[in-house]
């Protein structure tokens, strides 16, 4: 007993404390370095990395800030768009253009940090992103304050239409909602249960879909909201099951939740046909769901031209991921504006509204007065671990 007490007292005055302090400090420094290390990536044309940054118009650098979830569960979408944008950048071979990418994790807070950094530290003249609607809505006003335009490849919330500096190369969900409602009706289903992710994108899509489906004399018998990346969805599905809908419509943008959803629908013995929003059109979802996705119908935006597909495969030796064609066009829109002589944020925004017009991977791109493009949808059906266009 005495010995132990003595031990404790000697420990108290042990001079080891300084060495422990040093170790702790080193660990903290490593941690900080690690966090900063993963957050920022630069990609620029290899030909002009060493160009001096002067202010004469001919050599003035244009910085494109790229924001997307590069980590977190929506990273698959962000990485896919980034690769496509880099392909467009390489192809256009623009002088004096740098693209700096920042991670948003598909979270409003992450996007605000990323955009503030890009605008005040890197002096970005235009932003490419975000991938998700919620973060896009959060940062559009910040970019607007700096007079900087945003071009998104995948944020589809109808609420983004009213943002004056917001452009997108993907049609708004007000169009997809109508298309999806008609699709369900055409297949002969009159009652529908909608399960949607509880954030800006999911809520807006749900509202449009519900309104459009009811306009076509359909009945939405149940609407359930789940947290974006939740993986225990049984409580909601049990509710849906009890309402006996003809079909289910699942809206999501987190592969984790969507895979869990497909599995649990099957496990709970729900045999209704499942319709999914476009984010379902990703191979990782089929792989994860291990057969539970069979028969899933996805309303999807255009996958892009064959020409784009071939170029992408040649460059990366893999199939283009979700929203790749839209990402390619988003960079091309910005690149075309810069090619036409726009260098400042205001000039780029002006060019996007007025002069930018080209044939992109998803068809002819020309932004209307709200910064929107039109677009067609296609239907994919999951069969034997692959999506087949219907």
């Amino acid at each position, binding site marked *: *007993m005495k010995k*132990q007490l003595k031990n404790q007292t000697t*420990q108290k005055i*042990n001079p080891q*404390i300084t060495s*422990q302090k040093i170790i*702790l400090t080193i660990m903290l420094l490593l*941690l900080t370095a*690690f*966090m900063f290390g*993963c957050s920022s990536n630069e990609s620029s044309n290899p030909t002009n990395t060493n160009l001096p940054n002067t202010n004469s118009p001919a050599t003035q650098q244009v910085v494109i800030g790229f924001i997307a979830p590069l*980590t*977190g*569960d*929506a*990273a*698959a979408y962000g990485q896919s768009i980034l690769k496509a944008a880099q392909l467009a950048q390489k192809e256009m071979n623009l002088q004096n253009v740098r693209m700096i990418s920042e991670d948003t994790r598909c979270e409003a807070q992450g996007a605000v940090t990323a955009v503030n950094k890009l605008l005040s530290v890197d002096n970005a003249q235009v932003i490419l992103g975000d991938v998700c609607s919620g973060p896009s809505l959060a940062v559009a006003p910040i970019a607007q304050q700096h007079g900087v335009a945003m071009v998104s490849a995948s944020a589809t919330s109808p609420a983004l239409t009213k943002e004056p500096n917001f452009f997108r190369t993907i049609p708004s969900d007000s169009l997809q909602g109508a298309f999806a409602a008609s699709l369900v009706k055409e297949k002969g289903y009159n009652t529908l249960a909608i399960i949607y992710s*509880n954030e800006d994108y999911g809520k807006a899509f749900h509202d449009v879909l519900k309104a459009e489906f009811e306009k076509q004399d359909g009945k939405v018998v149940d609407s*359930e*909201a*789940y*947290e974006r*990346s*939740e*993986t*225990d969805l*049984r*409580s*909601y599905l*049990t*509710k849906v*099951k*009890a*309402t006996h809908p003809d079909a289910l419509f699942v809206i999501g943008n987190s*592969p*984790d939740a969507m*895979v*869990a959803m497909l*599995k649990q629908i*099957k*496990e*709970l*013995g729900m045999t209704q046909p499942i319709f999914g929003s476009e984010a379902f059109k990703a191979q*990782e*979802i089929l*792989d*994860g*769901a*291990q*057969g*539970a996705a069979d028969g899933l119908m996805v309303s999807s935006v255009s996958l892009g031209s064959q020409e784009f597909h071939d170029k992408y495969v040649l460059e990366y030796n893999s199939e283009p991921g979700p929203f790749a064609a839209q990402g390619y066009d988003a960079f091309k829109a910005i690149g075309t504006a810069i090619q036409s002589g726009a260098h400042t944020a205001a000039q780029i925004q002006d060019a996007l509204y007025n002069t930018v017009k080209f044939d992109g991977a998803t068809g002819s791109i020309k932004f209307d007065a709200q910064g929107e493009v039109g677009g067609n949808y296609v239907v994919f059906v999951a069969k034997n671990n692959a999506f087949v266009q219907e």
Partner: protein
Amino acid sequence: MSFPIAQLLANSLIIGSIYALVAVGFSLIYSTNRFVHLAHGATVVAAGYALYSTFTLLHLPFILACILTIALSSVIGFLMFKAIYEPLQKRKSSTVIMLIASIGLLTLIENLILLFFGADVKTIGLLEVRQGINIAGAIITPLQIVLVLTSLTLLTVFYLFMKKTTLGRNLRAVADHKELASIMGLNPTRLMAISFIIGSALAGIAGILIALEQNLDPSMGTDLMIKGFSGAIVGGIYSVPGSILGSYLVGTAENVGTWFLPSGYKNAITFTLLFLFLLLRPKGIFGVDKGVRE
């Protein structure tokens, strides 16, 4: 709409079993160490990814993969204690410092996993996904039955271990009164380390069950920790049976509550329950007054 009571209870039992395994390990570590070890959630995630590496990537036999995973979880827990918590405790750091250290560890481990494994969906794929079997009106898959039974068996064994064995008694003695236990000849630091090893092993088992039942996501530790923590508080954080009961209660409240309330309030239900207990019965259901040390 008929009220599917059997299905709701089955759902509650499944998720409650997972919360309970997390909560019991957490509660053991909390009671012996007296600080909130939030990085416990990271141990669960690390276990899930360890199973993914050993079973799905390296194709080791399933039982061997599980044993390695549980061993690794214990090692992670022990290392966290030795490298971070013990030095801080020696310097008489306040519980706030320990809490911040544990949040730091949670973030660090989750991000390391993200760095090594990436963010895409990972599934173990031990069993084929198929429709469950109907038991008294509830549809439940064989895997889920195994999950619930494993969890209940383990929790019982752990309860008996704490009640009947010498080591269990010693752990409870340290939890009761550290100085007194020390005067009676026990070595509190050693027992605290043991509580980390046992608690993290339980977290490892929870990780295995979650990996089999759901899919893996590097950031799921935080969510699980919140639920497990709530379960432990509701049941009584110093009491093993309390934490178990509390976790099942949280699971039931979530599932039955979601039936009556609009969905989207699921987490709100958990937190309302937590607040009610913190306000009205801070000791939890099985709580006993153990504030003697302070």
